[in-house]
């Protein structure tokens, strides 16, 4: 019995080896059209699974809008290859390698800076350029020549949010609540606190240990510290736990880009919470943005699977917009390179300019975009929808 079992396993192993050998980066699709592959390196499980899926949706929508690209006078079909990095660094490396195996020309993603940094050496080794959508940690592009990104960075975001606290709430004391062990959260908290120091806002900081679900203690601490605002750059999971508690204490909440998510709407609706967050995208900012929203929503509503991946609503998340822009930038670069060779595309990326739904994209030498305004949105708890508050920049 046992031998049979072992034999069976060996068989499975060999077969799958053969199978994997078979589908090597075929450049011709079933209907004879030439194909270029774009890899989607995103989590669809793990801590960031929900956010990752929304980013994937934006990319898939972009793919449905622009399914082909012309290279060297020939029309190429663009095939997106998604892979799940499970929001974990050690799983991410093999996921990235999987994309390399699949023969992709460009990679988009990931939601979560940690996994992006983990995969950077893999992409560099294979000379495949990667375009981050919403990974805001400076470390993603810093020293990684093959990593680009279409969003702003945490130092800028943190400073802007501190300015928001000053301008909107005239804050004297800010309670900074971050997630222990999460580099995004702690990094953004750090930049916020630094700017607060410059603006003369007193900072009281605290951290939530991973897996803790009891937020009442922290809200009490904020109250006792006399905080005017709570700055909580956390994941949506922690956010929805926190919102309820903060609402009962009556302290306004400020958060980073992760809060632009339907989950926040659900959590904040009817709670009376005062929620503000920074985001990458505002449908009212330009015609392109408005078009994106209507197009994306009708695309979502036409497909129940996609809708459920978006959390069952057609609320547009900023990460979807970033995913869309990243895809479009990749297409522009492929056009500019006029080649399917990833190294050539990487060189072309450096000089691409593109006006996307989240703003203008032009990469600097680190591979970052220069965005000097951040959209601030709030939650209308009665209507259960987001509304634009303002565009916030830095003061002086």
């Amino acid at each position: 019995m046992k031998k049979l079992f072992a034999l069976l396993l060996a068989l499975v192993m060999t077969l799958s080896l053969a199978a994997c050998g078979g589908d090597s980066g075929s450049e011709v699709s079933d209907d004879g059209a030439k194909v270029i592959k774009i890899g989607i390196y995103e989590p669809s499980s793990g801590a960031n699974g929900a956010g990752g899926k929304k980013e994937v949706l934006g990319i898939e929508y972009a793919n449905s809008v622009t399914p082909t690209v012309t290279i060297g006078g020939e029309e190429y079909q663009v095939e997106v290859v998604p892979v799940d990095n499970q929001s974990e660094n050690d799983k991410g490396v093999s996921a990235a390698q999987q994309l390399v195996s699949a023969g992709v020309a460009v990679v988009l993603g990931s939601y979560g800076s940690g996994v992006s940094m983990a995969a950077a050496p893999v992409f560099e080794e294979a000379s495949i350029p990667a375009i981050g959508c919403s990974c805001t940690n400076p470390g993603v592009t810093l020293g990684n020549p093959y990593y680009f990104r279409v969003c702003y960075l945490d130092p800028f975001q943190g400073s802007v949010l501190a300015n928001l606290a000053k301008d909107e709430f005239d804050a004297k004391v800010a309670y900074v609540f971050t997630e222990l062990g999460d580099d995004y959260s702690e990094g953004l908290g750090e930049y916020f606190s630094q700017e607060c120091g410059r603006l003369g806002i007193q900072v009281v900081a605290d951290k939530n240990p991973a897996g803790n679900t009891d937020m009442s203690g922290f809200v009490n601490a904020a109250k006792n510290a006399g905080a005017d605002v709570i700055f909580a750059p956390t994941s949506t999971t922690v956010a929805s736990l926190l919102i309820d508690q903060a609402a009962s204490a009556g302290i306004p909440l400020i958060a980073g880009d992760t809060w632009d998510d339907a989950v926040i709407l659900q959590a904040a609706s009817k709670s009376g919470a005062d929620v503000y967050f920074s985001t990458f995208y505002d449908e009212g900012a330009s015609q392109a943005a408005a078009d994106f929203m209507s197009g994306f929503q009708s695309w979502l509503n036409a497909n129940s699977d996609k809708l459920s991946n978006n959390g069952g609503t057609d609320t547009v998340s900023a990460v979807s917009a970033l995913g869309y822009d990243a895809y479009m930038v990749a297409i522009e670069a492929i056009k500019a390179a006029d080649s399917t060779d990833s190294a050539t595309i990487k060189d072309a990326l450096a000089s691409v300019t593109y006006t996307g739904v989240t703003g203008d994209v032009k990469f600097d030498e680190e591979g970052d975009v220069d965005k000097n305004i951040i959209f601030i949105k709030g939650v209308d708890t009665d209507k259960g929808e987001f509304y634009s508050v303002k565009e916030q920049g830095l003061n002086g």
Partner: protein
Amino acid sequence: MQTFTQTMLPTLLAGISAGGQYALIALGYTMVYGILRLINFAHGDIFTVAGFVMFYAITVMPVYLAIPFTIFVTVLLGFTVERLAYKPLRSAPRMSVMISAIGVSYLLQNLMWYITGGQPQQYPVIPWISDKVVILGQETKRVTVITPILTVVLILILLLLIKRTKIGLAMRAASRDFETARLMGVKINGVISMTFVIGSFLAAVGSFLFFSNYSTVSPTVGTMPGLKAFVAAVFGGIGSIPGAVVGGFIIGICENIIRALGYSTFSDAFTFALLILVLCLKPTGLFGEKLEEKV
């Protein structure tokens, strides 16, 4: 007094409330351990499943049906897990059963990811217990106040069940000596199933209280409370019902005090350090019985 109600009272309330929830989950661990000598690693996940079942149930039925339905499904799940994953290993070494429990936990988590897509879900509002009440000038949810009371009531009922009924007698016999109890005509499998049924029932009740307070269900949300409840069970002396309750409250309150003092980084570490300390000083916990191996 003013400072007490402002700073200490909310902390204590949160601590007692958390403690009550830990206690309810800890009972599931401690009862199973008492009889099977098994750390049921899957218990925290069963608790999470209860949260999801309630979330889905409320979309198709009214609250007064959804609550019993959730309890029923959770109990059924506990029963099934025991039958499928633990019963076949009855004669196997203890380590195998524990590994099976870890496997079940792994499977349940992955299943929840697959089914829910990993979206954190907003827990439905259960009327009355989610209402706001004011205690000594502090506004809080009614569930915070109810949790410790309900916990104590449930435990008293449980103790009565164990001390006064025939199945309770059978449980006590089985926890003393499996083989002898079997020889004396105790239906061991029935008793074990009953233990899992009661444990899962308490986990379901715990999930109502827990999620009403913390409002979001995600596949891994039960892991930490589960682990801490287990620590509470060990702390109080695993196998002992009053021990689990005392352990739950002590850990809940300590944690919140530490957080209030501004050392939240170490609140989890403290719980585990406390565990190691207790195990070293009194390896069988506060109320645990000493088991000597016969030579």
